[in-house]
């Protein structure tokens, strides 16, 4: 109980902190609206030029729902761990964080957790409700919502572990920008956030199936939209990645943390 109380204190602090940046939220929402406008017109003209209404098993409205919710999930899960960590190494603040009574990786996760809670309610939920109303029942309501919530929690954990792993690489290279942009572009493409995975050619799709990235956006959305019958299998794939990435990240962190050098401070 005591351990949980400590962690939730961090969650609360994060919630209060992120509520302070209302302008940031406004700009993010504005950016999402512009992105959705672009996606709408782009895919509308793509489907208009195509002789078939259904491509790769997806209709226009399927694609729209998928991409809009993917962007909502993206802005809700987005973390700046890589940047935060490299900045706190430069300033020397990381020493204080390492001395906290909670292991560093856990401390970081719980500090971010408040931000997740707030952005879930401020960005994801409104988007979901709007999509639900506009699409008039294209999203089934039932047990799939429960699976979706479980899946999102797992996706948050996977995303966090990927980010933390990449941030740890930065301890070795001192090239934050380069490493971060590599992660961003790979995750965006292979998770299905830019083009739904249903459109991928078979050869690439086979490779993507064995990568952890689809577990971040594609699997939760599949479960929500009831696109796949095998619910347990999808959830187990996610669980598998959570465990593998967390273990790999923990080992890698342990080796790397000795390398931290802070100049002055």
């Amino acid at each position, binding site marked *: 109980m005591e351990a949980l109380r400590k962690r939730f204190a961090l969650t609360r602090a994060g919630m209060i902190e992120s509520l302070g940046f209302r302008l940031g939220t406004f700009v993010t929402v504005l950016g999402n609206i512009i992105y959705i406008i672009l996606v709408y017109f782009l895919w509308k003209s793509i489907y208009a030029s195509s002789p078939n209404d259904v491509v790769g098993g997806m209709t226009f409205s399927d694609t729209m729902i998928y991409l809009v919710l993917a962007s909502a999930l993206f802005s809700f899960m987005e973390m700046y761990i890589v940047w935060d960590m490299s900045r706190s190494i430069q300033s020397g603040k990381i020493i204080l964080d390492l001395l906290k009574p909670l292991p560093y990786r856990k401390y970081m996760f719980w500090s971010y957790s408040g931000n997740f809670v707030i952005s879930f309610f401020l960005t994801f939920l409104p988007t979901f409700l709007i999509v639900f109303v506009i699409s008039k029942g294209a999203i089934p309501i039932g047990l799939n919502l429960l699976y979706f919530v479980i899946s999102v929690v797992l996706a948050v954990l996977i995303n966090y572990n990927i980010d933390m792993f990449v941030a740890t690489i930065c301890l070795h290279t001192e090239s934050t920008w*380069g490493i971060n942009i590599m992660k961003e572009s790979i995750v965006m493409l292979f998770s299905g956030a830019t083009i739904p995975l249903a459109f991928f050619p078979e050869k690439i799709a086979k490779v993507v199936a064995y990568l952890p990235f689809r577990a971040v956006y594609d699997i939760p959305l599949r479960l929500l939209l009831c696109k796949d019958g095998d619910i347990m299998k999808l959830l187990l794939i996610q669980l598998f990645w959570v465990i593998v990435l967390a273990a790999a990240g923990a080992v890698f962190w342990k080796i790397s943390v000795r390398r931290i050098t802070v100049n002055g401070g």
Partner: protein
Amino acid sequence: MSRLGFYIKIYLKILKQDLKSKMSYRADFVISNIGMILTNLVGFLSFIILFENFEEINGWTKYEMLFLYGFSLLALTPVQCFFDNNWNLRFAVESGDFIKYCFRPINIFFYYISEVFDVKGLGQLVFGGGTLVYAWYKVGIPVTFRNISLTCVSLFAASLFMIAVMNAAAATCFWITRSGMVMVLAFKFKDYSKYPISIFRGVFRVLFTFIIPIAYIAYYPSIVVLRPDNIPVLSWISLPLGLVFFYLSYRFWMRGARKYSGTGS
């Protein structure tokens, strides 16, 4: 004229200093450029995947779209290479370091911007150039002196628009705190420039042409070479409009800089 020579001489001197300090981080140079090429490669791959499913988008074939993509990457190289210091503006303003630029007998904007030359833009230059040449060859545009010089002028005009957008976005930090989100939002616009503006309808076409001028980063300037039979009037005014946008963003930036009074530290 001697004044221009004076500024060029100063620019080269500052550039030399910056490159010297960058040379001590050779790993960063290599990794940043790999990251840059990788993120562009992912953009390239998205087009390939899209056109596996669809023949054309709104009357645009695969290679015409790749031409737009290559053109946009080249047009975005100057803002990446020469105007990258805009990303640090908000930190300089918040910390008070910006005051140092106010005490030099040269133009503040010039001095501030010239301080950083971003080497990772070179990766984009190479990749964009390669894509443009490949698409040029595939589309079968005649290689004439006229076409090549038109492309160069168009690229120059196109590059002014993104520079103007980023100048204006960076300058918001003189008025609001946490303007980082504004920069991130503005920088995302560049990703939208690779699509033909003809996919947008009505008010949105006006919005993306005159308010957020992403249509001018690739579509209008490149159509002069790509589809010479049917050039819209808006293409011919690319250069003067680009200069107007650049000038306005410069005035906005300078207005902020003049208002700046330091942080008192």
